[in-house]
């Protein structure tokens, strides 16, 4: 069933952790909450889990209002950042915990535990205590434990952030694979944009307790609505445009856009800026001077100054060693009309 959150607001004393948050999590999808530290991701997750009570707003599972259902009866699985396995119980006992709470029969429990340990490839660790397992193994057990009682929603709060890079990479793929295989509706909190881009069907970008934008990775990258989203996902050049609504131009150059502009802030992704050969044309053409070239192996990052607007530096990329693009070199840059993004 879909999860629908409407108008959620939560204050801690004088700090507003969430203000009027609304979003939809479609059944079977993986949604990431992405945002900088302190933006309210954990709070939102905990409110959905029922571990924290919202000041206003509704949480709907399908058509059922969950606001008055206590956390332990919501039948949601949660994986915390770290160290939440019961230290006195073995891996198998941890996985069985939720089943015992639901009074499953012994044989059913045993079967389900084996199935879950198999799912996370840790059948051989069943009798180990958490302290005897690595961080990555502990998180896998935590995932198995959360999934064992057939939760209707899986909630993950930065499940990978305590792990080192290599394990994190591995587990990312594994979580996604398990999620797709079981088709379980999942919400994951992260502040790592790569994690979100790689795993999510839907990304919800949060900032200061508000939803900035929600959508697929592709939609957020291609059509960011705000400067915050554009800068948070990938990198972007921003320009201030004069007379956006009537006669948009950047410095001395008139701009051709695919849609009329609404705001005066314009974004251009570095890879959308092309170095034009002599005689080659583009929707928007700028004369520019290279200021700095940083060689990064597979590409070179170039900083340039536009003649039309010398006060607004621009960064773009060239693939490979980019011979001849050394500082001081003058060149023409082209940007397609559709690559000029209107940012609120």
């Amino acid at each position, binding site marked *: 069933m879909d999860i629908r959150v409407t108008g959620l607001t939560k204050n801690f004393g004088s700090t507003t952790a969430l203000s009027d948050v609304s979003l939809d999590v479609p059944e079977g999808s993986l949604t990431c909450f992405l945002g900088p530290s302190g933006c309210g991701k954990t709070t939102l997750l905990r409110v959905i*889990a029922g*571990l924290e009570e919202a000041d206003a707003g509704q949480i709907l599972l399908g058509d059922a209002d969950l606001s*008055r*259902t*206590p*956390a*332990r*009866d*919501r*039948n*949601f*699985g*949660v994986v*915390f950042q770290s*160290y*939440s*396995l*019961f*230290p*006195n*119980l073995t891996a198998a006992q941890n996985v069985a*915990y*939720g089943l015992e*709470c*639901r*009074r*499953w*029969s012994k*044989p*059913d429990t045993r*079967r*389900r535990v084996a199935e879950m340990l198999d799912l996370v490839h840790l059948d051989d660790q069943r009798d180990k205590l958490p302290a005897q397992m690595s961080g990555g193994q502990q998180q896998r057990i935590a995932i198995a*434990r*959360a999934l064992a*009682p*057939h939760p*209707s929603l899986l909630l993950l709060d930065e499940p990978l952030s305590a792990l080192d890079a290599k394990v994190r990479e591995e587990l990312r793929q594994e979580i996604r694979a398990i999620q797709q295989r079981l088709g379980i509706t999942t919400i994951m909190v992260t502040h790592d944009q790569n994690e979100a881009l790689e795993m999510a069907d839907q990304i919800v970008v949060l900032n200061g307790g508000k939803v900035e934008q929600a959508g697929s990775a592709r939609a957020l990258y291609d059509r960011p609505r705000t400067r915050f989203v554009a800068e948070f996902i990938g990198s972007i050049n921003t320009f201030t445009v004069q007379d956006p609504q009537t006669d948009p131009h950047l410095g001395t150059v008139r701009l051709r856009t695919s849609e009329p502009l609404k705001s005066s802030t314009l974004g251009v992704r570095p890879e959308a800026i092309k170095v034009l050969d002599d005689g080659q044309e583009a929707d928007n053409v700028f004369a520019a001077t290279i200021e700095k070239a940083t060689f990064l192996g597979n590409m070179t990052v170039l900083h340039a100054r536009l003649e039309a607007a010398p006060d607004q530096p621009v960064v773009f990329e060239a693939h490979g060693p980019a011979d001849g693009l050394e500082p001081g070199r003058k060149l023409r840059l082209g940007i397609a009309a559709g690559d000029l993004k209107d940012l609120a």
Partner: protein
Amino acid sequence: MSGAARTAARRGESRSLPALTSDRGIALLLSAIMAGLMLVFLVMPVAAILLRSLDTQAGPGLGNFAVTFADPRFWDLLVNSLTVSLLSSTLAVSLAYLYAYALQRSNVPLKPLLRIVVMMPLFAPSLVQAQGLLLLLGRNGAFNRFLGFDLDIYGFWGVALANTLYTFPYAFLILSAALAVADARVYESATMLGARPGRIFRTVTLPATRYGIAAAVFVTFSLSVTDFGNAIVIGGNFSVLATEIYNKVIGQGQFALGAVIGVVLLAPAIVSKLLEKRISSRQQAQMTDKSVPLTTRANRMRDLVLSGYCYAVMIVFLAIPGIVATASFVKLWPYNMAFSLKHYAFDVQNGTEPLWNSVYVALATAGLGVTIATVSAIVVQKFRTPLSGPLSFLAILPSSIPGMVLGLGYVLAFNNPANPLNMMYGTLALIIFLYVYYNHAQAFLIASTSLKQISSSFDEASTMLGGGVVRTFFKVTLPLLWPTLLGVGVFFFMRAMVSLSAVIFLITPETQVAAVSVLQLADRGAVNQAAAFSMCIMAIVIACLLIVRLVLWLAGAKSVTLIR
């Protein structure tokens, strides 16, 4: 998944509101029970003292206070109490500071032995110090009888010395903890700036431990002011306020005047507790996670001097139980020193009954005390009910009430036909509750601290998996907490075995406990039997410590503190 399992899973899903009310219900019920118990066994007795002190023949008023304050004897006793306590507190803290310093900051050999020996006074009723001192330095003591001295220990000096020995371990525990934390970087900076050891001690060590010193002074002072066992045994004609309550109440049945002195005794204890709390809350931020622990450098001269000191202190602390043991094993101290076990026959009074009463009471106190302290800590820490605030205040209140005053409060409150719990008066059950609430503060703090260390994410994980508060407690919290709780149990057991002043007013012939027997035997001049009784108490306490240590060792929980 099988059909049965599926229905089970669904059942979990559909139990919605009742579960909420049942968890909430458990929280409220437990809070209410804890609050009720505290009202009956803590607030009511204290209130009874206050009310009784204001109760005069002419109706409520300050008449009793006026009578007491107009009596010059009261002021003499007050001065006696203050001077003797000030002296013993100063002595205990200075001696314990040096001792703790030697153990924490130098390479004195045999540290574990040195540490355990000075704990001996905690294993026996306070008055064993006075007993031992009399056997050593009294009229019939070893020094006068066998070594030809002519000492007179009775009176002021005897009480001061006995209380010094009795309060030394309390001071040592506090100061040892204060000296255990040190940031090596500060010491290294001081050395690099050219400070010599004497200056470093004055400018770094002493300031860093001044809160510990203040706390130790307060604790030892309140212990001395309110102790009456030593004063009665070794004081001779020298009386203090604590002995005066005893005389007024037991000797003359003047409850109102006893209550007045009780209120007076409450004052310094409360003041020093308040100050201690304020001071210890400032102690916190001394160590940061960046601190580098101090390692002890080799220094032969220092180690030699401090070893000399430590072993001298150790000999004194061994001499007291040693001489008491000797007295218990001879025919008639000091006239017939032939070996004999006859004092262990306990053929006087009620025989061994007080001893078994004590063991029973101490075990029950441990069981009930651990339960009550743990539940209170959970109620305050984990349940957010309207009662949590008042409970957390009441839970630590008893640490400011002297045992004797609380005991008197119990008599006034429960020996009252109007009290529906009047039938508890004269039973061991009431004594058990008295011990539980007398020691509640410290046990509660230990339990709360350990609870706080158990991450709240375990509770949340359990909740999300569908576990209720009861299941979470028994499946997760208790298995993590039991070694600490066993330690709390030992603490209750020890205190219940040795406390004298708290129960002195509640004793009836049927509910005699061992510590009171020692007092009565000593009072009657049955020196050898009193010594034998003391030895039995110490043996039981030490046996309990050893057994629990063994259990913890077998369970792999080695770092639990048992002596507090």
